[in-house]
């Protein structure tokens, strides 16, 4: 096991870096897109709500691998050439954003009606009430589930392995195939994933307790 670390630390670190990079980009992207579609889903207008829910249902119900493959293989054929890393990251962003939209929507719904009514009665418009009162409170509620989404996102970034995105799992596969030391390699890869996700999940639990 040690020899894998001593001889392969370079690709492993590279993979770890790409996994972190992809996760961060996808996190920010899916947060923005997810919030946008959450707002669509609670709109007054039926048609806007419909658009929101179609987006969410489509991306929620198709395997991430299929989405990422679509971006890697089909999009360059007809639209624009993108790298495996980009295709995987975009796929991961859209996929995660559907889940985040659901989470944020639930968060908005969990803010008591009284808060909105209080703000409206106080003279604020619906949009102002959302911006100053409802969304800030919703985000607070949503932090723990968002944290879990982020952990899922980190794990799901392993989809990059299938589109040559040079992430941790991709490098792990290569090392395993080269050295044929399958179990030790994947053991190390697992530990590297845990190094990202475990602290995160403990931090989330801590936050959850603090906010409760």
């Amino acid at each position, binding site marked *: 096991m040690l020899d894998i670390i001593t001889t392969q630390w370079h690709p492993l670190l590279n993979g770890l870096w790409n996994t972190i990079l992809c996760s961060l980009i996808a996190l920010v992207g899916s947060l923005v897109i997810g919030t946008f579609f959450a707002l669509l889903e609670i709109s007054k207008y039926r048609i806007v709500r419909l658009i929101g829910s179609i987006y969410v249902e489509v991306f929620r119900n198709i395997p991430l691998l299929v989405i990422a493959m679509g971006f890697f293989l089909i999009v360059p054929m007809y639209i624009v050439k993108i790298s495996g890393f980009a295709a995987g990251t975009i796929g991961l962003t859209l996929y995660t954003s559907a889940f985040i939209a659901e989470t944020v929507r639930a968060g908005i719904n969990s803010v008591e009606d009284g808060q909105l009514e209080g703000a409206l009665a106080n003279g604020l418009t619906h949009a102002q009430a959302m911006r100053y009162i409802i969304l800030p409170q919703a985000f607070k509620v949503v932090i723990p589930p968002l944290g879990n989404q982020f952990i899922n996102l980190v794990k799901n970034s392993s989809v990059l392995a299938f589109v*040559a995105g040079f992430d941790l799992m991709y490098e792990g596969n290569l090392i395993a195939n080269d050295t044929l030391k399958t179990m030790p390699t994947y053991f190390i890869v697992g530990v590297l994933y845990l190094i990202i996700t475990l602290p995160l999940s403990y931090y989330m639990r801590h936050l959850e307790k603090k906010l409760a």
Partner: protein
Amino acid sequence: GCSSVANQDILKVDQKSKQITWGVKADTRLFGLEDIRTGKLEGFEIDLAKAITKEILGPQGKAVFVPVTSSTRVPLLKNGNIDAIMATMTITPEREKQVDFTKSYFDAGQSLLVKKGSPIKNIQDLNKPGEVILGVSGSNSVKNVAKFAPRARVLQLSDYAQAMTALKSKQGDALTTDNGILYGMASENPGYEVVGGNFTKEPYGIAVNKNQAPFRNKLNWALNRLEKNGTYNRLLLKWFGNVKGFNYQEMKR
């Protein structure tokens, strides 16, 4: 642990049970591919494995097939799920540290598939920064590329169809793997051609666990007999006789 696997003489076990369990490919045309109608596996390797089984165990001997992929074949062998791997596995010194190989049963050579009219004519043309070569992860051919075209970037995908489609999507400039497979793909995709000849030798071997000398010797013995009695050439003709561009005469033994 793995006491059971390491300490057993596979040959004896198989002779007793009258069956050999082979790890084979199920998604590779010409070598090992599942027939969707029947659910049976077929291909050159499948037929050869059957013939070897009969050779070793006699007419009642049974070949059992377990589909494997490049990433699962070695762990399955080590865990004893399969007795031997016959799955387009190239004999390399690196791999010989982990498993034992028989003599080669198929001398593939690595080549390139490119779009017709591409400026790339051989592997040297790819040895430039910015060139991207597509391959299948776990295959030996991608490792060779690092030797022959160290300055190119290599993208490894999960299977040949994905690699081929990535080539069509211009995710790479050339696709490299063993020539038999490349010719198969060229015939499906008229806009693409195999170029540059074989720039490596890719001898496929049957892999068995370490410390199974009796079994490996028996496999070599069976292979030699099949080559001598013409079975080998017959199977070669059956599977590669009609592949356009593939020189089957050269491969005869």
